[in-house]
């Protein structure tokens, strides 16, 4: 669905169901250079089970207009504004990778609006390899190849997509490459690299939080994901074996099962 946030055309997938502001809202926030398309194996499920779902495209990403936001802080604030823009007062947030930093910032800036937080493949900081950052800022497609290499676990490198016929590495690669790399991935990588508030923000979080981590994650390593979870009071941690950074696709079913349980417990549908 298209709607305006701060006057700018914004796209969010509603998971195949018309948006209804009276249902509990779950917002999904994608990682660097990506879009709503990475969430298809989680969003449709919730959308057809009584929730309103928004898998947003950050400004300048996917089908959203505008320019990419330059800092994690701005992106976090923007996600907070999405909630009001669709006529809601509160939401649960699910972030992946950079989206973890963004959703944590959103909670820090709009604590009253956020009910639960799920972090997938997160870390309290995502410092970028300088060479990778430079390639992305130069729109060099090699940046995307490197990203896809790091983002997928050993199993994902062979394939075995949950949706028959899809090939992990190239799907991710084309989502990024269908935009100007420097304007999306380049800006996002720089924002991640610059962001230093992670540990402080994490320590102040006070809401039901779940971390889903891939045992073979080479983008945000398992140990860094665990450190982040340790900062967060009472955070649940679920580790998916044989899985890289793209758990939402590489192990979509396991990811969905974990998320389903967490949402059912902490953000249940009204009776």
């Amino acid at each position, binding site marked *: 669905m298209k709607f305006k946030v701060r006057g700018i055309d914004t796209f969010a997938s509603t998971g195949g169901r018309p948006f209804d502001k009276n249902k509990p809202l779950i917002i999904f926030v994608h990682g660097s250079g990506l879009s709503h398309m990475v969430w298809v194996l989680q969003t449709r499920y919730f959308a057809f089970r009584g929730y309103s779902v928004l898998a947003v495209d950050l400004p300048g990403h996917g089908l959203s207009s505008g320019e990419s936001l330059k800092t994690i802080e701005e992106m976090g604030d923007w996600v907070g504004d999405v909630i009001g823009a669709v006529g809601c007062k509160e939401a649960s947030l699910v972030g992946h990778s950079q989206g973890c930093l963004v959703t944590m910032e959103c909670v820090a800036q709009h604590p009253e609006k956020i009910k639960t937080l799920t972090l997938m493949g997160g870390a309290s900081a995502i410092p970028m390899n300088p060479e990778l950052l430079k390639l992305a800022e130069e729109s060099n497609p090699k940046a995307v190849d490197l990203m896809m290499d790091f983002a997928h676990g050993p*199993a994902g490198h*062979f*394939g075995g997509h949950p949706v028959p016929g*899809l*090939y992990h590495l190239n799907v991710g690669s084309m989502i990024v490459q269908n935009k100007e790399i420097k304007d999306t991935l380049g800006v996002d990588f720089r924002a991640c690299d610059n962001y230093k508030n992670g540990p402080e923000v994490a320590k102040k979080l006070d809401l039901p939080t779940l971390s889903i981590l891939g045992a073979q994650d080479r983008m945000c390593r398992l140990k860094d994901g665990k450190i982040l979870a340790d900062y967060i009071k009472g955070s649940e941690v679920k580790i998916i074996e044989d899985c890289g950074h793209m758990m939402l696709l590489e192990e979509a079913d396991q990811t969905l099962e974990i998320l389903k349980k967490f949402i059912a417990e902490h953000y249940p549908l009204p009776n």
Partner: protein
Amino acid sequence: MDPKTYKFDTLSLHAGYQPSKNAGSRQVPIYQTTSYMFDDVDHAAALFNLERGGHIYSRMSNPTVQVLEERVCALEGGTAALATASGMSAIFLTIMTLCNAGDHMVVSSQLYGGTVNLFRLTLPKFGIKTTFVKPRDTEGFKKAIQPNTKGIFGELVGNPGNELMNMPEVSNIAKEAGIPLIIDSTYQTPYLCRPFEHGADLVVHSLTKWMSGNGSSMAGILVEGGTFDWMQNDKFPTMTEPYEGYHGLSFAEEFGPTAFTMMARAEGMRDMGPCLAPQNAWNILHGLETLSLRMEKHCSNALKMVEYLSNHESVAWVSHASAPGHPDKELAEKILPKGTGSMIAFGIKGGKEAGAAFINNVKLASHLANVGDARTLVIHPASATHSQMDEATLKFAGLSHDMIRLSVGLEDFEDIVNDFEDGFRAAKKPRLVANK
């Protein structure tokens, strides 16, 4: 710093398959089953509604076939693939997913005969019309585009005349018109050419040929490059507008770079059902393991064959993009640097009768209606593959009565030559031996 993603030969052996999820079986298992158990009703509903990935019924997908799909997809550099019962069904499914009644296609005139018939005779029955353009007539592709044109379709190296379509330029024409370029890359395989790197948006194959190499099984595949923006104009409403069959799902919005394949499976496979048998998928996978090795030898044997035929007194002309003086040699060197494939057409002196005598007297080369077998194959198109065509269509398709089409196999080159010498000897006195 370089990505450590697997390269071509490794992918041809491993892509799409994980032994750890298949009882440790090193070879891909054949899932000889029609259907798959649901965990519970919620799981079933989620699968049917494309909320989760997985298998429901083998008309839609099958785990063995899935490995083949991912493997070809990886080799082509595509985002998604859909395997079909034959090359023809891959083409049919592609066009039926792309077009509605009242739509139009621009198509290269030098195609496999079956594909010509599909566009010329069968698709009009569904209200889909075609304008044919000669493969070298790049401007012609542009001129043929109408407001209701939904795509450009062609074989990179036309069959059987070996004329090249200028894929990079034709792809620019397609881009300008906001329509996809679809390439039938059967003759090249991804070993010789990866059309997505030259501007194609969709690729189809008859896997019956070089991809399998063993001549055992029929199969086809559609591969999506993930490059085409279906939402750039209003030409593709079935891709962009809510689709009734799945609760108002917009394939382009939801699946982006895999939207076409998702649609082709969800609608085309569901309703038309040309699914690939798992045993056949396995046979093709078996062949794919040696794709590079075979294509290398196909091409080196073909080069020697071109030289042999070019210097033969009984041969009037030889057509292969590597042949000296071939008008497309330069383009071929650019987009087919590893070789231009193993299809050769040549004219035999003495015309139709000599051709028939040649065919009837070779013994090692197999006379049959296929190409891309590991064995050397010969045929006389005017009397076989293209025999349903009238004189004018034959000429437009670049055919002549003296033409012999040769698919060079992997035999020892000397053995092929010895066999051909017998054929040429007989062709010199066709009246005596033509009907042996």
